[in-house]
């Protein structure tokens, strides 16, 4: 089986060949494996959203190629197959829902795919259950909270039975609860086998991924598992990015001389490490701590 997404030497130039030409993606090669949770970070204008739009043929390469499940995005005949495989959730929850009732909104995608009616009903049910919104099936989308709207948008994609979910800053406009809801939903779907590509400015969300790529000026500047990427605070800072809170605090305390282990990413790990230190009487007596 081919990898889910394979990008080779992708370049994207807006207004190519005019004086207003802007190189947004400048030579990216990337493979996304099935079931992966990938976070894409980078400053404003680093090419994140342009890259995302290549993942389901909303944009086509100026140079290079993008393959989704073995299908070339430049092949016009494959466009609908590609969009059925890779669904996108965008930033503004108010711009993505089309129907006046939640379940009709979810049914819109499968209806367009020509799915038989009986199966649509089953799919709508299943998709709403997956995002924990079944009880809102007959509600009007505009009366939902931001987090609920984004979950309905995700359900609309799930009803197409996609292999990959791309979130393009989909949590940016949400309040804390909305963020928690969307992130929990996405993690649950990923655990169930859906590939997730999460584009975000929030480092505390990127830390949840299996792998992070950091873009700078249309290229991949840093790549690796979170523990590795967040070990390179200086490089991130140079890219206009920061460490998530927990690794940042651990790093500061290490610089103060506290022997906290490397690679601490989450609050639970941090608490464990500090508790272990507090219990380590040998360390205390060696350092004259009372």
């Amino acid at each position, binding site marked *: 089986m081919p990898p889910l997404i394979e990008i080779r030497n992708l370049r994207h130039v807006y207004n190519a060949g005019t004086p207003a030409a802007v190189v947004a993606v400048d030579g990216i090669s990337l493979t996304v494996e099935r079931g992966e949770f990938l976070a894409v970070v*980078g*400053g*404003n*204008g680093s090419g994140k959203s342009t890259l995302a739009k290549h993942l389901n043929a909303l944009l086509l390469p100026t140079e290079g190629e993008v393959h989704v499940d073995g299908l070339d995005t430049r092949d016009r005949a494959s466009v609908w197959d590609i969009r059925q495989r890779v669904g996108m959730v965008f*930033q503004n929850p108010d711009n993505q829902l089309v129907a006046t009732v939640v379940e009709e909104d979810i049914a819109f995608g499968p209806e367009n795919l020509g799915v038989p009616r009986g199966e649509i009903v089953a799919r709508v049910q299943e998709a709403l259950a997956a995002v924990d919104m079944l009880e809102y099936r007959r509600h009007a989308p505009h009366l939902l*909270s*931001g*987090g609920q709207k984004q979950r309905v948008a995700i359900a609309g994609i799930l009803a197409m039975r996609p292999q990959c979910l791309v979130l393009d*800053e989909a949590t*940016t*406009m*949400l*309040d*804390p*609860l*909305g963020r928690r809801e969307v992130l929990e939903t996405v993690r649950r779907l990923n655990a169930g086998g859906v590939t997730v590509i999460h584009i975000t*400015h929030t*480092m*505390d969300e990127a830390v949840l991924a299996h792998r992070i790529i950091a873009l700078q000026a249309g290229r991949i500047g840093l790549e690796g598992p979170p523990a590795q990427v967040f070990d390179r605070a200086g490089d991130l800072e140079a890219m*206009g*990015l*920061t460490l998530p*809170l*927990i690794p*940042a*605090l651990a790093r*500061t*305390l290490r610089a*103060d*001389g*506290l022997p906290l282990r490397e690679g601490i990413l989450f*609050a*639970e790990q*941090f*608490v464990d490490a*500090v*508790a272990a*230190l*507090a219990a380590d009487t040998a360390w*205390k007596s060696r*350092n004259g*701590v*009372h």
Partner: protein
Amino acid sequence: MAFIECETLTHIYLKGTPMETVAVRDVTLRIDQGEFVAIIGPTGSGKSTLVQHFNALLRPTSGTVRVGGVDLSDPKADRKAVRRQVGLLFQYPEHQLFGETVFEDVSFGPRNLGLPPDEVKTRVEEALRSVGLDPAEFGPRSPFSLSGGEMRRVAAAGVLAMSPTVLVLDEPAAGLDPRGKTEMLGHFRALHAQRGITVVLITHSMDEAAALAKRVVVLDRGRVVMDGPAREVFTRADELTAIGLGVPAVTDLVRRLRARGLPVRENVLTVDEAREAIREALGWS
């Protein structure tokens, strides 16, 4: 005397129709000159509706709003004078840029005040500098050639060029990258500290509220449910979580450390405070 004074303020959209929605309910709130107040609340809690009363964009359905002593529920009130004093920066304000050049865009407000051209120029340059943009470099450029963060700062300069005494900011850092966020908020912090500008900040980020504001007002379903010093409000973690908010990430971390039996002091709001508190608890000072 309070500069902004809301007395049992209620705002109902589409009153008397089947779509009637009570956005703000019975809010009594006073904000003094020179304060830095954060307003937090879940989506739909009435934050944006409330602050639009502060510069007379909305009029109360019932109750009163007084700004600088002017009663805005009076239809004859001088609303223009209030708008000169209270500058409001909307969400995603970069969508509202329209000038051919940055200079033209930022100068729109002061020109409408009928100020002489050299005064307009001085104000525009000062406003651009206070958001970290060099007037000579950015003034002649098209706003649409700028990055998202720069456009946002141009929009903020447009508000600052009116020399407001109160700045109302509706999610000013939403959607900016970490560096853009830090810079944007840094400029507002400096304007408050150096010029004593009153700042009312709406935010979804508990971390931002804790790092910037001395006082935090919490809205839920149109009502003020908490109002006090940031340090006190953020001790009420369970109540905040129940309405869909939370506490700053460091405050949460310290709670977890304490739950493990570590003697870390409470009421920690910033990374620096957390660092001190943890060193202290481990006797590493």
